[in-house]
């Protein structure tokens, strides 16, 4: 008989499935645009630092 702490917990499993379902979605375009903005800021700072 399994120990009580290791027994299957359907709610935790469901929460983890919901989490995985969102986490495995393709990243929406909005996020890619935001990351591009951040990358541009980093690139601009690098460029300014080397001049």
């Amino acid at each position, binding site marked *: 008989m399994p120990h009580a702490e290791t027994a299957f*917990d359907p709610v935790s499993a469901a929460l983890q499935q*919901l989490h995985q379902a*969102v986490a495995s979605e393709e990243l929406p375009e909005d*996020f890619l645009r935001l990351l591009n903005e951040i990358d541009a800021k980093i690139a601009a700072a690098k460029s300014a630092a080397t001049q």
Partner: protein
Amino acid sequence: MTEVTPETLAADQVFRDQLVALIPALRSFARGLCGWRDIADDMVQDAMLRGWAARASFTPGSNFRAWMFMILRNQFYTTIRKDKRMTSWDPEVAERMLVEAPAQQHAIHAADVAKALQKLPAEQREVLLLIGANGASYEEAADIVGCAIGTIKSRLARGRKALALLIDGPGGDALFDKVA
């Protein structure tokens, strides 16, 4: 204005990479908190921008996930005060998922958990999401929420009990007795 040095540039790149790696978890936490995909994604993007703007105040090597989750959580409570629609998960996604025990003695739909989750008080919902879905420790959840570990444990227990009642009715307690 912060002076740009090779160190700050390197730190910015590390910060950016950590932010990218955390996006799936941030989106999941936000979706679970508010239940609406578009609003959740807007909250995450706002939190990312706030985090980026405040990156100089982040201590490298400390818990980046907890730091960003705190910002996102604050964003959620700011948003929820303005928008009262946040009551359900994305039903199309949740409806397709069935969670079963290995021996199939307990089977519940993730959709039922998602719906029940949105009926809980936000302070219980966030603890269930942090610990149950995101795998945070009690200590990390306490840091993110800004309360004592005992409060986290109490909210988790009450949240689980309430979920059981919402999913299975008054007899739902049995579902959790063996793991409480």
